[in-house]
């Protein structure tokens, strides 16, 4: 159990989410293939207590999800963790921060449209200003100047926006190299890719190289900043799969509640 709500961990989660793009399709296909098999779905139990737990977990595809989780953790221990450790050792902290900043800034258009979709003009305005300031004064997103002038980073993605509209999450899914998700957030993830401008940049040789560098750096940064968290979780938890499932689903719901409750005025705080 980790009682801290640490900015680094949040930053890690963000980078990780961002860096999933190139691997999402393979993972989703693998899961869909497995999910189609009936034997990988748990039928609802008869006992009322078990049924309550079953509903709370929202994980009818648990057998398939656990297999996917094991694949992910195998890759984590064999490859991602050692490479991530090497990344932390080799890359200076300021550079790592800048990579995380670039990832955050280039995702702002998706955050902006998600905020607009959720009907939250103040949040949308903050995302717009962050993008404008960091892309110019922040040198294409390498420096988070916007935070210094009062536009703090926040997360909204299309999955959360759908959640604020009352769209049900659908069953929990664990997709290798993407992590915990569900049907709604999986669809939201697809939408967010459509709202991210870098995906529309023409693919000349140089740009392709750049795009690879951007994605690989983002991926490494995402894993590297999560290593401590994952290690703690594996050490402190008897069934890390279940712990992640519970924490992730509650966290998503709490983000939806936060967006719904964010009724700040569009005028700056000092004006009110």
């Amino acid at each position, binding site marked *: *159990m*980790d*009682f*801290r*709500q*640490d*900015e680094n*961990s*949040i930053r890690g989660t963000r980078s990780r989410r961002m860096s999933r793009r190139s691997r999402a399709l393979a993972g989703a296909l693998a899961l869909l293939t497995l999910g189609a098999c009936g034997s990988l779905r748990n039928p609802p139990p008869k006992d009322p*207590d*078990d049924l309550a*737990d079953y509903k*709370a*977990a929202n994980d009818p595809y648990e057998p398939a999800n656990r297999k996917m989780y094991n694949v992910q953790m195998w890759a984590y221990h064999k490859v991602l963790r050692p490479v991530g450790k090497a990344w932390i050792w080799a890359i200076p902290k300021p550079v790592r921060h800048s990579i995380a900043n670039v990832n955050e800034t280039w995702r702002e258009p998706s955050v902006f449209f998600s905020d607009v979709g959720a009907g939250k003009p103040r949040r949308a305005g903050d995302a717009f200003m962050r993008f404008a300031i960091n892309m110019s004064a922040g040198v294409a997103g390498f420096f988070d100047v916007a935070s210094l002038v009062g536009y703090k980073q926040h997360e909204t993605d299309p999955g959360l926006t759908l959640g604020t509209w009352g769209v049900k999450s659908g069953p929990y899914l664990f997709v290798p190299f993407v992590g915990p998700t569900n049907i709604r957030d999986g669809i939201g993830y697809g939408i967010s890719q459509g709202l991210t401008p870098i995906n529309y940049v023409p693919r000349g040789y140089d740009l392709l190289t750049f795009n690879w560098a951007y994605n690989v750096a983002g991926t490494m940064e995402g894993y590297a900043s999560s290593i401590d968290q994952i290690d703690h979780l594996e*050490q*402190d*938890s*008897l*069934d*890390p*799969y*279940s*712990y992640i*499932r*519970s*924490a992730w689903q*509650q*966290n998503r*719901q*709490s*983000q939806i*509640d*936060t967006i719904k409750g964010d009724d700040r005025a569009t005028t700056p705080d000092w004006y009110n």
Partner: protein
Amino acid sequence: MFNVFSRRTVLGAVVSLAVATGAAHASTATDFVNSFGGRLATVVNSGKSLDEKKKEVLPLLKENVDITGIGRYCLGKYWRTATPAQRDKYISLFDQVLVNTITDQIGNYQGVSFRVTTTTSTPEGERVNALIDRPGQPEVNMQLIIGGNPPKVVDMYGEGASLRMNQRGDYSSYLARHNGDVDALNAALERQLTHHQ
């Protein structure tokens, strides 16, 4: 006219009573967090060694955290099926696991100060939001659920997730995969404590 006035008066009285009771509840929870948090901060910020700090924090946790209640919640439906001996053993192990989890964090906090920001009522108890300041580090937002009489911490929230609910998911999942055998859970907790440095 008199009737209307009197109805209004009665309504007003009822409303203000309700508000006053709510406020009183909130202030009990806030007072509790201020006092418990203040005592914790004093120990954590003192110049003593880490081991000494852990020793001093222990009685504070025992007094102010509803360890038995949280432990019982985490066992879920298996609490009913467990024998009294299994329950006793489980609670004593859970007590150590929880205390370790909290005291492990002490080293990460130096020169801390905190302030209560908001309090809201929830079915589980009063939810108190507190901001913890550490010099040179980002603020940590912590939510505590305070319930019972005398008030105690019955749950904590981290990143929007109830930690006792996470723990319950963890244990019940483990038990479901071990045929509901509480002895197996106790053995796993014992192993966890042995490996704890």
